[in-house]
């Protein structure tokens, strides 16, 4: 593992074993996260981005299971570099060691704050719980810390909010509370799972700005999951494009937007509505729909929908990621003939 990285996911494979068959939700995903970097994972729904982060957190529920690969995470501490490394994929998701990392070193901002908060426990109760799970402090002190965090994320009258319930807050405030909760133990890696999907556009911009600011102040790394390329452009330094459980292309945000190499990335970018486009012009869409995970196409998963697909090649073998100049990496036979071994 590169000493610069805080997280290094290598060939991660997560499967769901069901009666109907095996769904390869994540099938050989690799990417790195450096300290202080915002990595955006983008893809359509069902592409495996949520399962990827659940695998990192060790909260994949049955019948799902991490079946292969490594999730190397650099733990807090000042010891020798080798001793600080831990492979999260090898830890028991419910075990003590994993639980000590989860919520403390790696924190989650969930997709729907309303559903992620208990409706019958106060905001304060849930914030204090998050603090006290990892820090040996009194209830009083935990309350003070919770109020401090809420102030930091811009919740007005934080002391009053402590005794309120989730359904008494607005959508934007709820998301701020979730962010305060995630920050409660000063994580070094923050995972944001479509944090702006459930809130309206004006609030979205505020939350994104807030996350950017927090990231700079705390020097945290963020993995930001979204299906919205516009959001990625605003927050990410580095982008991972996923399709059907595989990484199609990765690279610095500017390269991905201005010089996309994979046909899927290009198709995604073309389907973004633009204010500069001619009016009444139909928006380009990607032909076809995502195949069912039980029924994955052979070869490159995008081949059946790809405009540049080469029959006899793309539908037979799976392309290997190829490093291009300038930090970009792409898995496509247009760039390299090397295929994955089956």
């Amino acid at each position, binding site marked *: 593992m590169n000493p610069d990285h805080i997280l290094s996911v290598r060939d991660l494979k997560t499967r769901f074993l069901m009666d109907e068959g095996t769904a390869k939700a994540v099938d050989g995903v690799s990417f790195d996260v450096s300290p202080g970097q915002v990595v955006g994972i983008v893809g359509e729904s069902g592409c495996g981005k949520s399962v990827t982060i659940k695998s990192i957190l060790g*909260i994949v529920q049955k019948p799902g299971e991490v079946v292969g690969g490594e999730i190397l995470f650099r733990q807090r501490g000042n010891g020798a570099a080798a001793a600080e490394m831990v492979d999260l994929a090898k830890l028991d998701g*419910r075990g003590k060691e994993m639980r000590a990392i*989860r*919520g403390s070193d790696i924190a989650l901002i969930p997709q729907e704050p309303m559903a*992620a*908060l*208990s*409706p019958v426990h106060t905001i304060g109760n849930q914030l204090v*719980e998050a603090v006290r799970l990892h820090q040996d402090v009194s209830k009083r002190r935990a309350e003070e810390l919770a109020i401090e965090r809420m102030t930091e994320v811009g919740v007005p009258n934080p002391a009053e909010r402590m005794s309120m*319930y989730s359904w008494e807050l607005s959508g934007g405030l709820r998301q701020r509370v979730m962010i305060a909760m995630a920050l409660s133990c000063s994580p070094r890696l923050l995972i944001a799972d479509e944090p702006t999907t459930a809130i309206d556009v004006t609030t979205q911009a505020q939350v994104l700005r807030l996350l950017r600011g927090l990231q700079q102040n705390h020097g945290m790394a963020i993995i930001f999951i979204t299906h919205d390329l516009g959001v990625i452009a605003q927050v990410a330094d580095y982008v991972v494009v996923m399709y059907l459980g595989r990484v199609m292309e990765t690279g610095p945000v500017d390269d991905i937007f201005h010089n996309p190499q994979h046909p899927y990335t290009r198709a995604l970018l073309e389907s973004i509505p633009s204010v500069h486009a001619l009016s009444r012009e139909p928006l380009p869409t990607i032909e076809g729909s995502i195949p069912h995970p039980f029924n994955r196409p052979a070869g490159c998963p995008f081949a059946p929908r790809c405009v540049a697909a080469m029959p006899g090649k793309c539908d037979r073998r799976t392309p290997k990621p190829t490093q291009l100049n300038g930090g970009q990496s792409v898995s496509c036979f247009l760039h390299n003939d090397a295929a994955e071994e089956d």
Partner: protein
Amino acid sequence: MLVYIVKRLLLLPLLLLVFSVIAFILIQAPPGDFVTSYVAELAASGSSMDRLQIDALRELYGLDRPGYVQYFKWLTRMLQGDLGVSLDFQKPISELIGQRLLLTVILGLSTFLFTFAVAIPIGTISATRQYSFFDYFFTVFNYVGVATPTFMTALILMWLAFSKLGITITGLFSPEFADEPWSFARTVDLGKHIWLPIVILGMDGTARLARILRANLLDELNKPYMEMARAKGMPEWRLIMKYPVRLAINPLVSSLGWYLPLIFSGSLIVATVLNLPTIGPLLLRSLIGQDMFLAGAIVLSYFGLAVIGTLLSDILLAWLDPRIRMEEA
């Protein structure tokens, strides 16, 4: 919260008034009256009464008046705290049912607590270990529990206890304590006897509530707040007890409104079979003998217990669920 409780308490007298009318109509519904069945009883034992004597008896008890007059006389006396005299026993009704009512309430509430204490762990484990041996075992056990009539369970247990262990398990007290005043020793004796009726009466409810909890909990276990709590690093069992179980118990508490009255009145047959000194067997006897004032008082106390049960469930639900609390205040 206080407003909520007061609002409900204010409804109580009105409800009881309505119930008193219903109770009176129900009791008057069968043809004939107490004197008719008294005469029949006399005839069965060989003696008889002449017309004049019968009319005198009717007049004495006010049975010759129209129904509404009888009702208002009854209501007025009840409001003054006088439940009247049992025609059959020739004793004040308050004396007859006082002790029995207390035992009915003790038995009902203990059964209720037993039900929850057993149903919650069974439901929780069945849901969290879905399709395990434990889950299947209790599924079968619960169906048997729901399907077997309680008096049947009572009879089987009585027979088993008598034939295998040689003990009689009827009543709530040993013979030496039956008519004693309350004492520590009598309470201990009650404890020794009451567990069996509790188990018998509670089995049905336990099975039902465990099924309800299991279904509710299975819904809750996939909610996003579970994932969030896990992501916080919370130990699995602690989070299950704090969030989903807490939320799945709410519908269970609202079932309390119908379940508590059901325990009180549903115990009638079991109490008769087991010869328990509760108000159930007394109601049965008073109905057969058309002892209208006694039957009226008992039916009304059942109504009263039902209303209190509903009230308790409302209060408990408001206390448990802030969403209900805020809505009502």
